């Protein structure tokens, strides 16, 4: 048993739902108790979808268990076919139904429904959401391509590609697809099929017609891409075009495979100039902690170091399936890889590393909020705010612009930082005023306003309080404490922690003015 407070991924059948919901003409009959219907709200509330996910839950109850839950399943499948008339059907079991072993695969086969039926074996007690999505996508595509022969390629026609991986409930998948489709168009490459997002089972049957595949989200599409390589001999483009450099790499890779001229698409984003312009000087070596799915985390690390000039101090992912890739990347940045789906372990790592910016998921956003560290979200799991009304891709050149803005805006701006230092003694610029962009009530800052410890009165998480009860409170001499208050509020917590660490390491019983400045010199970059 694993004690879990928050989980990064849902169960594998939620992954299957992400495939079914992304597509048209698919219906998923899920043998599951009533509570599992909560998953609908992920799509209708978080993603604001205007249709119910195409899922029928058998919703068996305790009183059915002694009787015939198998008949209940068959009835639900029959009704679902009659009502929704799908082109293809997925059948499977959620965690509870897996235990009662009704065998949806065999039951569905015996029914001889008049459409292709793919029985999903998604082991709920071993696997998770992304794996479930990848497996479902692969099984469905494989079934639809079973007897297909690729259409003959007309000579001199445009090269064609499949864009594989975008799903429902994906982090900015909707906009990434638009961006990459445009990019391919500029290269003179036609999109054969984009799947699963917006595709029908009949579209999946045409996958073999494309010249090559773009594995846009390896977590979802890698399994299928490997099979397509074998089945149709299609090459796979594996560069994930997140960031300016990665987008140019994708263009080069695509151009080489398709035999087209890369230069026509070598556009630029605003990122390079925005990053070189002087206001961005203050971004130099900002310490950044990165966590998410492996693909987004690895891509973010490259952008952070090479395109924004940050220092990557932590890199991790929650999906063990891609742990090897993440370890390779971590070695590149000289940091310990953090491969875990334990939210508390991630929280502990952030606390230890004390980054100046966190790039993470909604989970890390919550951690960063409590630690008062700026944060931008770069990866699923998603929240309603990760589905903005505006066009906001992560991929391609426009994606690079979005990354610059969303990662830099949480930080204090360069010029602002100077002004804060200049005016810190101004009476109107006191801590009591709080930050001008925040509500008037000043919030407790990490490290405490005016030296007081952060109030943990309302804190009831399962992790230890973020600021340890301060036995070191009397560590500070009065003049050092006063001097500390002159340090701008947004770096004061860090100054306090560094000084205390410095003092502890040297077994100093009191922090004097000199200790404060010795520590400052010690930690100066």
């Amino acid at each position, binding site marked *: 048993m694993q004690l879990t407070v928050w*989980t990064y991924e*849902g169960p594998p059948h939620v992954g299957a739902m992400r495939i079914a919901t992304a597509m048209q003409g698919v219906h998923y009959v899920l043998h599951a108790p009533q509570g599992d219907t909560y998953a609908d709200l992920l799509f209708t509330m978080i993603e604001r979808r205007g249709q119910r996910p195409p899922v029928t839950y*058998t919703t068996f109850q305790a009183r059915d268990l002694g009787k015939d839950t198998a008949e209940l399943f068959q009835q639900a499948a029959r009704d679902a076919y009659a009502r929704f008339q799908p082109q293809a059907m997925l059948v499977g079991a959620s965690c509870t139904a897996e235990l009662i072993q009704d065998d949806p695969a065999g039951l569905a086969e015996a029914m001889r429904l008049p459409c292709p039926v793919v029985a999903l074996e998604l082991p709920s007690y071993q696997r998770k959401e992304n794996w479930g999505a990848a497996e479902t996508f692969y099984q469905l595509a494989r079934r639809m391509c079973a007897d297909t022969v690729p259409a003959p390629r007309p000579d001199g026609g445009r090269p064609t590609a499949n864009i594989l991986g975008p799903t429902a409930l994906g982090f900015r998948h909707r906009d990434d697809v638009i961006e990459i489709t445009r990019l391919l168009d500029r290269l003179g490459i036609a999109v054969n099929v984009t799947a699963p997002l917006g595709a029908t089972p009949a579209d999946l049957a045409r996958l073999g017609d494309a010249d090559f595949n773009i594995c846009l989200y390896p977590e979802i599409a890698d399994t299928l891409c490997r099979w397509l390589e074998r089945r149709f001999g299609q090459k796979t483009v594996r560069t994930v075009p997140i960031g300016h450099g990665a987008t140019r790499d994708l263009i080069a890779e695509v151009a080489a495979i398709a035999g087209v001229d890369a230069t026509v698409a070598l556009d630029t984003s605003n990122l390079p100039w925005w990053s070189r312009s002087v206001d961005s000087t203050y971004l130099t070596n900002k310490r950044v902690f990165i966590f998410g799915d492996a693909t987004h985390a690895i891509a973010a690390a490259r952008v952070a170091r090479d395109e924004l000039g940050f220092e990557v101090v932590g890199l991790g992912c929650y999906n063990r399936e891609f742990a090897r890739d993440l370890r390779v990347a971590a070695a590149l940045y000289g940091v310990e890889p953090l491969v875990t789906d334990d939210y508390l372990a991630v929280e502990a790592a952030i606390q230890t590393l004390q980054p100046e910016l966190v790039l993470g998921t909604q989970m890390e956003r919550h951690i960063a909020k409590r630690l008062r560290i700026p944060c931008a979200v770069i990866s699923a799991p998603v929240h309603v705010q990760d589905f903005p009304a505006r066009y906001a891709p992560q991929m391609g050149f426009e994606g690079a612009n979005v990354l610059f803005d969303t990662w830099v805006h949480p930080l204090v701006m360069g010029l602002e930082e100077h002004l804060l230092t200049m005016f810190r003694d101004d009476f109107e610029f006191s801590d009591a005023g709080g930050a001008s962009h925040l509500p008037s009530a000043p919030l407790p800052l990490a490290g405490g306003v005016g030296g007081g410890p952060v109030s943990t009165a309302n804190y009831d998480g*399962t992790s230890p309080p973020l600021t340890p009860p301060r036995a070191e409170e009397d560590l500070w001499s009065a003049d050092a404490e006063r001097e500390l208050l002159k340090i701008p509020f947004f770096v004061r917590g860090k100054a306090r922690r560094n000084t205390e660490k410095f003092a502890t390491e040297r077994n100093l019983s009191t922090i004097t003015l000199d200790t404060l400045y010795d520590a400052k010199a010690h930690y100066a970059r």
Partner: protein
Amino acid sequence: MTPALPATTPGCDAAPVLRERGQREVFCGLTGIIWLHRKVQDAFFLVVGSRTCAHLLQSAAGVMIFAEPRFATAIIEERDLAGMADCNEELDRVVDRLLARRPDIKLLFLVGSCPSEVIKLDLTRAAARLSVKHAGVTKILNYSGSGIETTFTEGEDACLAALVADLPADTTDAPSLMIVGALPDVVEDQFLRLFADLGIAPVHVLPARRADDMPPVGPHTRFLLAQPFLGETARTLEDRGARRLDALFPFGAEGTTDWLHAAARSFGIDEMHFRRVIAPGRERAKRAIEHSRDRLAGKRITFLPDSQLEVPLARFLATEAGMIPVEVGTPYLHRRHLAGELALLPAGTLLSEGQDVDRQLDRLRAARPDLTVCGLGLANPLEAEGLTTKWAIELVFSPIHGFDQAGDLAELFARPLRRRDVLRV
């Protein structure tokens, strides 16, 4: 010649009920943890279940509230099922680790789930075993919030029923009043003030805000249900000798009056005194409801089954806001506790119990009411079809009981209608 009218009451208390069996679109009882863990401030809820349970809790919580959790899930893994690990030993290990991290926990609920029920993991025995181990520090109880046994608010019912079994015996001979059901603190305080003004004492609440404050129960306990979904809790209280005071549920001016009146009558409070005490609140409630009445009067409303609050809320909207209930669906219809409510529902209201969601949506699309109260999974799809909706779950999370929330309650229903009217996009 006109046919003779059947000699029945004008309400719905004798009306036939459409009982449906099919796909249900409701939460399981685990969801109650979201509000129960905020109510009892030194309690912790440990779900023994699957990744799905953990995902449900954070999805339900994430969409609705942002809060630090005093709940967690012990996720059953392959090795537990394959017998490579002993589930009971694993559970003990998880509980030990949890309690070591959180010494502030005074009451721990082991909450059963669908998987734990199906593999027949005996949490009652586990709770007894762990209670001995952690005696004097943490009390450990258990209940089932599984979706194969409980629907949404039935989770609170199961939790409170588990608490009742553990309540101290009231050995005094004096009558006492118990308010049963988790209410927001602000509402609870209002009721306690009213009972004090009426001269009723002592008054206890279940659940109390702290584990060591849980009320005593005995043959002289009289209790008022604050929520309509507490059938099992009421039964266990009655088993311990307590007596239920029958009343409307405290929604709206009339419901709250009747609810308070039941207690006043039972405690022999003078009628004039009762009226004097409640008059200001009752008047305020009526004035506040009046703000929304224009918007609501004459509008047709359908409730899809969700929280079991459907019948009392439909009664409130019909009698005090002039709305016309079309279909009132509920996951479970407790006829005895709802008798007074049903009698006040307009004749002709379709009552349905259970669910076959696709067929129910067919009826809804045919009836096209002005407002549909439904779960989060259905709200946006129905809005996209042009049906105005109200999230049922908000009714469970918001303070809606009592005189001073009556206006807010009406406003919750009026807001979606007003929004529909003001938008020009």
